[in-house]
């Protein structure tokens, strides 16, 4: 008998349990069809690119077990977000590559005076060295008084830029630590340019 398309489909579904292989394939198929995000943890975030600030959902796997480093497996638009309602632009849909990228920096790099290459250094060494350089410059060049003898406590020999790529709270910490604390006047960010 030549099976019609209809009877073939019937065979494929209802008769699957009694397949020619002698065991039931249904669960195996179901397993293969499960989406990679079915068992992920979803974290709500905001796209770091333009100022529309679309809501994104970052899917990570592996965060439920100890000694396993969670990995981002997918980033998608947040359907609940009133602005993007799940959609993303060509940059937003590639956000996973902004997170997992073999060009990401993973260690402190240092370039010595006159050198033509990077050296890898430990964090503690770098923080210590930066702090000494900062303090030495500040101690020597802080303008405590101006030409008219007025207190200004202005540090103009060191500049600090940053923030538009980071959270408000980090912007505030930059302002607090470097201007209110250490006296830095040249404090700027992308908004100027």
């Amino acid at each position, binding site marked *: 008998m030549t099976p019609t398309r209809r009877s073939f489909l019937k065979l494929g579904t209802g008769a699957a349990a009694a397949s020619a292989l002698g065991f039931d394939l249904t669960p195996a198929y179901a397993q293969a069809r499960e989406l990679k995000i079915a068992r992920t943890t979803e974290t709500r975030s905001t796209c770091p690119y333009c*100022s529309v600030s679309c809501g994104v959902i970052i899917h990570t796997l592996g965060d439920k077990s100890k000694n396993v480093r969670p990995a981002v497996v997918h980033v998608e638009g947040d359907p609940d977000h009133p602005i993007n309602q799940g959609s993303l632009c060509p940059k937003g849909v590639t956000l996973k590559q902004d997170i997992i990228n073999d060009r990401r920096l993973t260690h402190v790099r240092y370039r010595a005076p006159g050198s033509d290459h990077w050296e890898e250094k430990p964090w503690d060494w770098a923080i210590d060295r930066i702090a000494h350089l900062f303090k030495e410059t500040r101690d020597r060049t802080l303008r405590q008084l101006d030409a008219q003898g007025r207190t200004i406590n202005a540090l103009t020999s060191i500049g600090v830029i940053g923030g538009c790529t980071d959270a*408000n709270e980090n912007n505030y910490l930059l302002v607090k630590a470097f201007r209110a604390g250490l006296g830095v006047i040249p404090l700027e960010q992308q908004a100027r340019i």
Partner: protein
Amino acid sequence: MTNGWTDIRNADVILAMGGNPAENHPVGFRFVMEAKRERNAKLVSVDPRFNRTAAVADSFTQIRAGSDIAFLAGLMNYALSHDRYQAEYVRLYTNATFLVKDGYAFNEQEGVFSGWDAQKNTYDKSTWNYELDEKGFAKVDPQMEHPRSVFQLMKKFYARYTPEMVSQVCGCKPADFEKAAEIITSTYTPERVGTILYALGWTHHSFSVQLIHAAAMLQMLLGNIGCAGGGLNALRGHANIQGGTDCGMAYHNLPGYIAIQKADHGSLQQYLDAVTPKPLRPNSMNFWANTDRFVVSQFKAYYGKAATKENEFGYGWHPKLPQTATGGYENWSWAYIFDHMCNRQMEGFMSFGMNPVANGPHSKKVVDALEHLKWLVVAENFETETAAFWKPEILELIGRKPSDVATEVFLLPAANFAEKDGSFTNSARWMQWKWKAVDPPGEAKADQEIIARIFLKIRELYQKEGGTAPAPVENLNWWYSNPAKPSLEEVAREINGWAIADLHDEHAATVKEREAVVLKAGQQVGKFLDLRADGSTLCGNWLYVGSYTEAGNLMMRRSTADPSGMGRYSEWSFNWPANRRVMYNRCSADAEGRPWDAARPVIRWNGEKWVGDVPDYKADSPPDALMGAFIMLPEGAGRFFVPGQYAEGPFTEHYEPAESPVANPLHPAHSSNPMVKHFQTEWDKLGKPDEFPIVCTTYRLTEHFHYWTKNNPYNMQLQPEFFVEVSEELAHEKGIGNGDKVRVTSARGAIEGKAMVTKRIKPMMVAGKKVYQIGFPIHWGFLGRGQQKGTLANLVTPTIVDPNSFAPEYKGFLVKLEKV
């Protein structure tokens, strides 16, 4: 943005100018398309290129890069001369009724305002002011008929901008201008509303502040500010550039847009007197009268218990902006920083997530500047041209090699957006919390930890060995539970602020009421006027009050409910100020407090209070009290005429870019902005049109973000390399075929890439001269995947900056083009 992304859906007319939202803010652009689809809104695109926004627009007009003011001034003249302005709105809410001081004038032949000093090339601005009565209030003429009323002066001022003059300057045909003007000014009736969407295409000029002022003037004339579907909307270029600005990441401002203290503000009181405006109309709210509360609370946040009444809350510890020898103040804005660096006035520099070699004007000058540093710290996700400026291929730009450069460089691996929490403030002023998803890779650390560890190590050194002025370092209020890695939730609480002591009702009528506690010590403040000037409250940024209250972290809110039905989503995140979704919303209602358009209400007076959106007004002040709709301004009225604030004049006038193919057709004597100052290093060169005849502009592509995505495989596959857009006519003249290699050269440098011969840019007639324009996108450089080839767009841009905002002139400079 005065309004917000989701509000664009309420517009009848959308003017996209100085921006290309379909390309650069594509997801926000959905609301433009929704307005077109649902309301039959008209989209008008005005741009040097037929771009992706123009492709879906109802009207497109091509103009020369750098001629936008003339176009907007022409629109104002069109509205004023065709009786297409909302007269009642203008009379009620703007300073059109105010009288200007006798002596104010504009010299139409010379192109300068009264007070111009040709010897010193500067202005005495004393005549740029209102005529005041004996009490110090501005005089007004409600009929707007007085010859010195702002309205009459404005009408005369802009009468010069006829369609023919617009055509002379902008290079568009008079009839095309008039077609666009007809659509744009159609929103002058109370029932129609138009919005303006702009971006870096307006801010990157040597007259950028005046340009945006012109747009604000147009929107006030048409009665569009404060209304649903209206406003003046800056589409900002980075996810948290708005927040960075709000939080004081600028040399001239403290958090919350409070001007930084200057060398001549010897005491806290002198400072407060200098930065607190006096009301200019009897009933104006003049909200900045509360500056003392914001300043003292901020100092309490900085210096904690060490900030006492006796030491002026630590006022003397905070740095003051130094004065120059001539009596002005030193300028430490971006371009000036690198100029000072070139002149060996700086030793150290720290860059958190910024890449000035790529994103600053004139890359060669920046490389030279960095070479003068003793040390440089860069915290980044990826290696950047700035961190690697000492590499041979980059130093070659200025003819140096690594062994010549003594700068010590630290490149610190930093976490990205997904690897830390915290809030971003988007263009619509929505403060949205995000949650951390994963740890940063390898040894990379979150910025809060990098900042804290550097600061704490420096503090430790001061505690151990002493040093210069240790008090602010030692007394900084670093109260966080984990000092070396502050929790951003704790920082967010500090930014919002809390009561240090029990607070009482300041305006209580009886002693008993005064004794009642309105906020207990330790409780988060909930509204601006909870803040006190006596040291009993602490607040890092008054503008963000309400974001983290006793109700919790409101930036985390995720309710999609929209009771307004107009896309205000009042319980989604927190919208500064005070969760207000539409700024200046008093203007959305008439003199009696009824919405101009009943179908699109923002707020209305219900007999007792204002209801709807959070009112941009005293909530219980009746309309007949005439408080003035602009509560942040001392005159309470929107400013057509800006008294004294801007460098180059109280009204917006068209000036040519610093490099222009023609002399200003209005007044060749002062062709470009007379208040622009020129840097003097060997790098600061301008080109002349005989050698560099072509107008050039720069822009972004939707497939890339700034200089970041050149590290991502997909983005590089979508847009693999730098290219130059050239008109068919210019290509023909130069014998350039599509895909040929070309070189673009300015007085500063050259850049090479493939030519993209296109119909999207056309030659134009400007002041009787045939002018070509070219343009190119900015996204490549030296480091990244694929074909970078050193194609930094800013190798050719000038170091000219606006005299108010100090933003560089990236749009509308001069180049020449050759086939390689």
